[in-house]
């Protein structure tokens, strides 16, 4: 399952505050908790190292180019952003002296003029001073359509960016865009003095020895093996306490687990420990297992334009015949996943708690299909008007728990007269046109529905977001409900949080009834640290819990 940028900026407290402020000011908020983190601390001599096992290899360290979640583990520690996200969801100033707001004058009342004050005492790892030029260069490059930046979302609105002084930069937004504050919390600032002269964006030299302002300097990369980060003794904030942090690449989850238990690695992060092995790891001496909620909601997406799925009775019957209990007691052991009925993570302010709860009732499912006119054929498979109730289910080949789940489904659904076949593929084949252009029948997938800091699911449920019909967006269910379309439009058109909440509650009700997908669970990352290692703190604002290596240290 792809875990990609901007997944985690919407933890509940942050969002709540953000929208409260939006409601109050009418546009942008001032963070009540914009505490200054730069309280000078007595510097502690860094010592020791920590080896963090990850099952993907960090390869891209250029802050202005596309990257995967595991790359973030390097980015977040080598580069600094103007402000960052705390686990509670607050924006905390980093390179900026303060988070700009209407109240502190950083943002004009109409939300268009931004003025950022920067810290004067920051130096790049190579010793050069950090200045406003770096910020200007970063934003301009990200917005440049001919530069291979991962996304221009937000940055493309920036106009007239101007360096007022080495410690102050200002710009104008083309239109008010609240999410930009959060987007900037993800944008590592790149060194203008090094990169301005590089004409070929594919020149790998910076990628291979990145220079940032973060708590760690880039040590070395041993391709296929590890990346090491070395304490930056001139870091402008607190820490780091570790002399060295190593991201050790161990290509499979089983190897990762084995090496964690045998002590070869001190922590396991991406993708963590397989749910069915969590108990085994917990039994191992000297380690702690953390169950940290993440933003993923796992669903069975249905391609609602297939003749089988156009009948809502079929979708409901399939959901009734889904043995969630067995799935969550046997395949995913208790505590490793949380059953859900919504597409939003429970931490979201728009999450609706009291959606109708799923029940497992094969009899009801059969009755429903009988009533809807799906009659069992000679082979026991139901059919109606020449359409057999037969379809395939896909997921990433090799995800053993989902495969077990599929096989269980196959057996359960067969008993209500559904012929389910399994058709899995490697991720690269799965996430291309097969997924985007709705070429699947049904697919098990972990989704992050909201975009940036907003629960708005237009991209998933709006009828204009169906790529198979030429739209732009990821409504791969091909879900088309005029009522939902209307609500979605209304939801983005208002700043009234209470009103929006009602709208999204309503959408969750409709979607729960229509079932363009069968909701399963909200995910948890099962991660581990050795006893004595402190500083691990899950942060829903980032997609990797190694966001704060500067705080990690070994207990004395």
């Amino acid at each position, binding site marked *: 399952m792809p875990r990609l940028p*901007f997944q985690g900026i919407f933890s509940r407290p942050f969002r709540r505050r953000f929208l409260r402020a939006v409601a109050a000011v009418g546009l942008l908020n001032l963070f009540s908790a914009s505490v200054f983190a730069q309280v000078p601390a007595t510097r502690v001599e860094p010592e020791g190292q920590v080896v963090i096992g990850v099952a993907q290899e960090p390869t891209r360290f250029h802050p202005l180019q596309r990257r995967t979640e595991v790359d973030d583990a390097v980015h977040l520690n080598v580069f600094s952003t103007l402000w960052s996200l705390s686990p509670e969801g607050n924006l905390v100033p980093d390179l900026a002296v303060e988070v700009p707001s209407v109240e502190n004058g950083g943002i004009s009342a109409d939300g268009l003029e931004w003025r950022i004050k920067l810290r004067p005492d920051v130096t790049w790892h190579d010793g050069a001073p950090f200045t406003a030029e770096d910020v200007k260069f970063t934003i301009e490059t990200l917005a440049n359509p001919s530069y291979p930046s991962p996304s221009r979302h937000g940055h493309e609105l920036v106009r007239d960016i101007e360096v007022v002084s080495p410690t102050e930069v200002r710009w104008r937004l083309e239109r008010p865009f609240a999410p930009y504050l959060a987007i900037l919390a993800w944008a590592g600032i790149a060194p203008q003095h090094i990169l301005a002269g590089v004409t070929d*964006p594919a020149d790998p030299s910076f990628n291979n020895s990145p220079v940032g302002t973060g708590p760690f300097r880039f040590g070395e990369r041993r391709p296929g093996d590890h990346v090491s980060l070395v304490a930056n003794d001139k870091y402008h904030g607190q820490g780091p306490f570790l002399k060295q942090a190593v991201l050790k690449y161990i290509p499979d989850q089983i190897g990762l687990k084995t090496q964690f238990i045998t002590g*070869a690695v001190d922590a396991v992060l991406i993708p963590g420990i397989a749910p069915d092995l969590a108990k085994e790891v917990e039994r191992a001496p000297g380690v702690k297992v953390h169950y940290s909620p993440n933003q993923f909601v796992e669903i069975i997406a249905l391609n609602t334009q297939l003749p089988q799925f156009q009948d809502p009775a079929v979708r409901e019957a399939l959901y009734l015949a889904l043995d969630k209990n067995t799935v969550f007691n046997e395949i995913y052991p208790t505590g490793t996943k949380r059953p859900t009925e919504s597409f939003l993570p429970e931490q979201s302010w728009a999450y609706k708690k009291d959606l109708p709860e799923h029940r497992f009732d094969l009899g009801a499912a059969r009755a429903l299909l009988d009533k809807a006119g799906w009659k069992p054929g000679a082979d026991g498979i139901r059919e109606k008007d020449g359409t057999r109730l037969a379809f395939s289910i896909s997921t990433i080949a090799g995800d053993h728990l989902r495969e077990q789940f599929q096989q269980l489904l196959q057996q359960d659904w067969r008993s209500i007269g559904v012929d389910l076949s399994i058709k899995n593929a490697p991720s*690269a*084949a799965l996430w291309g046109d097969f997924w985007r252009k709705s070429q699947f029948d049904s697919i098990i997938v972990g989704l992050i529905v909201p975009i940036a800091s907003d629960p708005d699911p237009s991209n998933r449920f709006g009828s204009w977001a169906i790529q198979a019909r030429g739209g732009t967006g990821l409504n791969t269910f091909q879900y088309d409900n005029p009522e939902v379309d209307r609500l979605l439009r209304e939801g983005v058109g208002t700043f009234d949080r209470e009103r929006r909440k009602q709208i999204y509650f309503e959408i969750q009700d409709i979607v729960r009834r229509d079932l363009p997908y069968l909701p399963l669970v909200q995910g948890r990352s099962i991660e581990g640290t050795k006893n004595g290692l402190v500083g691990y703190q899950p942060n829903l604002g980032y997609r990797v819990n190694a966001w704060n290596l500067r705080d990690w240290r070994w207990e004395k």
Partner: protein
Amino acid sequence: MVRRFGARLIQSVILLWIVSIVGFSLLYLTPGGPLAMFAETPGMTQEDVERLERQLGLDQPAPIQYLRWAGGLVVGDWGRSYRDDSPVLEVIGSRIGQTFKLMLAATAVAMSVGLATGILGAVRQYGRFDRVTTILTMIALSIPTFWFGLLVIYVFSQRLGWIPPGNAAPVGDDSWLSALHHLIGPALVLGLLSTAVWSRYMRSAVLETLAQDYIRTARAKGVLRSRLLFHHVLRNALLPMITLIGLELPSLFGGALVTETVFTWPGMGRLFFDSISYRDYPVILGMLIFSAILVISSNLIADTLYGVADPRLRRR
């Protein structure tokens, strides 16, 4: 000799050309692409994906892409990895050392154990040792490498704790002792198959040599048994083994791929799997070409060496 070498060289170049076409078509014809994995990236729009595709040159027609790539091959520019923009040759270069180390260690195991058992088995043909090794080599030839690797890890690492469960070395520990310690498991596993192959080839080569008239001549001269074995039998029986090195290389290379996966070894095998799952076409292609060059040149070298080593083929 020189002319023969030259002719072989030209043949090799033609082979490489065929290999490059086969490899390229293989990748071009398959669905999905290097940017597929960004499909589920919120905030990355379809426009962003198309823009990146254009920048990677993936929107060009196949013949253009091939010519551009093949032209680069000739001048030593094998393209850039999609994953970190490093030149493909550099990417391969950064991994090949680990794989060679593993292959070398495995070959050392295979040659010492394989040759010794092959010779002993042949010298005492149908003896107890010969019977046991014949059965063992048959099993070694038939056992799936990865399964054997899993067993080795389970028994010797997890149960007995004698060897590490994987990796080339612990982070920050570059001592040769630790490197050697980590090498034992994978080298044994990778070496097993080759050991069996070497043993069988050596056994039949020795048997064939022993049946030669000149061995009888040597015995008729009253040559000492040790001299007979080392001077007459082995000198002749080892000659064809030179070509075996070349013949064994592809399977050794392939075996390294599997062994590296089991032992989380940071070599070419891992690079290959990562490149495949990330659809890093330039690297996949580069590795295909690289392995083909390796195979072709090792055969060329083995043939040449054989020509030098065997006086019948030598020309003065």
